[in-house]
């Protein structure tokens, strides 16, 4: 494993069903994540994915790459742009995970998370600790 290596790449399709499922699983029932009228009434262009859903799925390629060799000990992101989820067409969120730093027993994996040609998470960094 060397700095700059791409360890995982994955695309996730998000539908309104995905958002409702995440709302139930997380307990975040803010209506901007499932009702167009509410989203528009607060000045948004439409229904958005929960930022925490994007954060939650973006780390999964790293978790899969790790397997039982280690665990995620630190994970941080900035929410820079919203992921709009149309009522009928899926939103495609892509993740590229690249080695940023390698240290004794640990590494930092940097994520590039994009939707519609733009990054939606900034400074998305995953610290993994090897068992």
């Amino acid at each position, binding site marked *: 494993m060397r700095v700059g290596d791409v360890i995982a790449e994955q695309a996730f399709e998000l539908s309104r069903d995905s958002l409702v499922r*995440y709302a139930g699983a997380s307990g975040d029932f803010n209506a901007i994540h499932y009702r167009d009228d509410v989203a528009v009434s607060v000045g948004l262009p439409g229904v958005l994915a929960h930022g925490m859903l994007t954060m939650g799925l973006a780390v*999964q390629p790293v*978790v899969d790459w790790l397997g039982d060799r280690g665990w995620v000990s630190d994970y941080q992101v900035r929410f820079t742009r919203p992921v709009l989820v149309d009522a009928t067409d899926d939103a495609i969120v892509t993740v590229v995970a690249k080695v940023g730093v390698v240290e004794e027993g640990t590494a930092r994996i940097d994520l590039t998370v994009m939707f519609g040609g733009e990054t939606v998470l900034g400074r998305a960094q995953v610290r993994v600790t090897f068992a």
Partner: protein
Amino acid sequence: MNPELQGRVFAPVPSYLVGREKVREFARAVRATSPLNYDLAVASAAGYSDVVAPPTFAVVVQEATLAQLLAEPDAGIDFSRVVHGEQRFSYTRPIVAGDELTATLAVTSIKSLGGHSMITAESSIVDATGAHVVTAISTLVVRGEE
């Protein structure tokens, strides 16, 4: 927003018992595929006492502390203007089903930036023995009046 919130430490929220099916439900919602999140036998073989929660699961435990902050009578935070700016989880160990977790919130920073306010709140989450499990750190942006 009330600048005197900086440094305020809140009372711990009631404890949260991590259920095995809740871990699986959350794992499905974030598209987790690791058997550690679902399969007790696989988790046990890897040395865990039960299925392992995904890295962002701590937000479920943190949520009650953020609700406490937004409901604080003198905070002056208009929820309809709050945007999630940044999020971080710093773990001492992974959360597993069966954990009874208690979260305590502290406001660590308040800043104003071009009409907006930014508040950073850290929720320290400990297990039933009082040992640290994870600190969940949120930065919320409160948009100024247009």
